[in-house]
């Protein structure tokens, strides 16, 4: 495919008098992971809601595969191959895994008034797709609410891949996970990229972002701090810019005095700020 899968130009959104997002540019090609980074309230959620069709942008242009589009509903976005895996996962916890996997896109058989769900096939396809993503030992008949956070993420990603998504939006998929589970989810993110999807990966963890991302969009208080290719920015730089530079410089300075480098800055909170 030539040209980017997704291009945002000067996109903005206001809620009443509050401008949640303004003048954001982003480009994403197939087989690429674009990370969107920012602290809480930076506008990450607003941005993905625009791409996912939950909210419509007031300003700027959204292009999908070179075509200018207005995404008025999640259905619009889904029809254009944009799949979103939400932080809260968009699952119905009491429903079985297979029913969640196919929710809104049930496989049907039969004709006319006898048109009905092909449950046997849905169970089978769900099982196969999960196995293809390396998720094994999940009983697809179980309510999905009984799975672990990482498992649920992976079911959601497998679902998006199965339904031919070209653009996969992941809303903080690793935020609520432990170190090991987060690592597993990151592998599936890479697997999705390897299958030729464009991935928009929202996170506030620069370590996770830098490990998998090809380009990085930094947001702060609803404004873009720029979009960088991986070659242009180091993990240290990414962390610094994300934290707003100055504050982090201060912390680094304090820590530096104690002989702790910024690479180990994960324990910053212990010292208070």
């Amino acid at each position: 495919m030539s040209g980017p899968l997704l291009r945002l130009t000067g996109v903005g959104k206001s809620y009443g008098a509050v401008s949640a997002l303004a003048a954001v540019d982003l480009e994403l090609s197939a087989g690429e992971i674009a990370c969107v980074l920012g602290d809480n309230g930076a506008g990450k959620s607003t941005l993905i809601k625009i791409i996912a069709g939950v909210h419509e942008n007031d300003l700027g242009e959204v292009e999908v595969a070179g075509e200018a589009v207005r995404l008025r509903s999640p259905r619009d976005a889904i029809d254009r191959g944009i799949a979103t895996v939400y932080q809260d996962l968009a699952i119905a916890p009491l429903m079985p895994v297979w029913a969640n996997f196919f929710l809104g896109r049930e496989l049907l058989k039969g004709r006319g008034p006898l048109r009905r769900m092909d449950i046997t096939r849905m169970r089978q396809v769900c099982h196969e797709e999960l196995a293809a993503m390396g998720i094994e030992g999940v009983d697809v008949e179980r309510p999905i609410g009984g799975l672990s956070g990482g498992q649920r993420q992976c079911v959601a990603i497998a679902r998006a891949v199965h339904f031919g998504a070209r653009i996969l939006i992941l809303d903080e998929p690793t935020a609520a996970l432990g170190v090991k589970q987060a690592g597993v989810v990151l592998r599936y993110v890479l697997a999705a990229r390897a299958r030729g999807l464009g991935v928009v990966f929202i996170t506030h963890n620069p370590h996770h972002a830098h490990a998998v991302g090809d380009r990085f969009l930094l947001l702060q208080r609803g404004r873009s701090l720029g979009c960088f290719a991986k070659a242009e920015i180091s993990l240290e730089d990414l962390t610094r810019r994300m934290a707003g530079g100055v504050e982090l410089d201060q912390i680094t300075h304090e820590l530096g005095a104690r002989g702790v480098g910024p690479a180990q800055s994960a324990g910053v909170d212990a010292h208070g700020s």
Partner: protein
Amino acid sequence: MMKYRDHARATEVRPAREPPEFVDSRVASRPPLSRRVATPEAGALAGAVLVYLFFFAVAPPFRDLASLSTILYVSSIYGIPALAVALLMIGGEFDLSSGVAVVSSALLASMLSYELTANVWVGVGLSLAAALGIGALNGYLVVRTGIPSFLVTLGTFFMLGGLNLAGTRLITGSVATPSISDMDGFASARAVFASSFEVGGVSVRVTVLWWLLFAALATWALRRAAFGNWIFAVGGAPLSARAVGVPVRRVKIGLFMTVGFAAWFVGMHQLFAFDTVQSGEGVGKEFYYIIAAVVGGCLLTGGQGSAVGAVLGALIFGMTTQGIVYAGWNPDWFKFFVGALLLGVILLNAGVRRWQAARA
């Protein structure tokens, strides 16, 4: 596919070989029996059996086949709306206006036929349109405003109740509708909505057949149709359902209209069984429908329940109503029993769910 493999090798990603985290040895697989016990209608089935045995023991007339037929008839009159109310509850909403909507439908069909001196089927058809319209209005107001359906339908409940009384008084000058039994189409309408037939020497009301037919349809819709999957989803997780492209608003409006249909159906039964309609009836019936659905295992907050459960809930109801009569007790006790039953089943269900959660 080639591309996928190449990439996978290049980036050393082999998710297919990376499953150990997901086979959690601490999770024992549950035996099949406990899974069956875990179905939502299990409590209702146990309750139905207990209530049956209880009245079988204390009320000798309860044991007759003819009594069984009466019990089924009474159950069907509650059971038909209870099915629709159960679907709506699984879909996460309430309808408090369903009881008076039954009477509204009957009044409207009767008065339209009488005033237009038309075939009664004209009134029946127009009344169906109005009942579906009321359902659609309830649904539209709920999905459009986001106001809880409890409040929206509380409003329409009072409006319909008032309209029933005032409208009937305005048109007929009385609290009841005039007889329409000599009008065209009455006989055929009665055959559809309020006839009886003999099975092995016992007279069975046709509403029992309709009830079972609707129950089969509802079960099919919930378990086999894609729409059923959507009902569970909009009730259990409306935001998630919307996010994955389920038309949440259409599903909810459709469910409110289903309740409208069921109310209309029972209204037609009452009209053609009794020929005239009292404008003040129907108040409070909506709670019985809700109770039948809840006793049948529907989760009050949506996302769980079954049509079979609603059938069992209505059956428990019918058995209690008639059982009290057959036992020769004062029917004043009826409401007390229904309330105690509801409370008992809710406590039982809560206990079962806690037990399941502890085991899951």
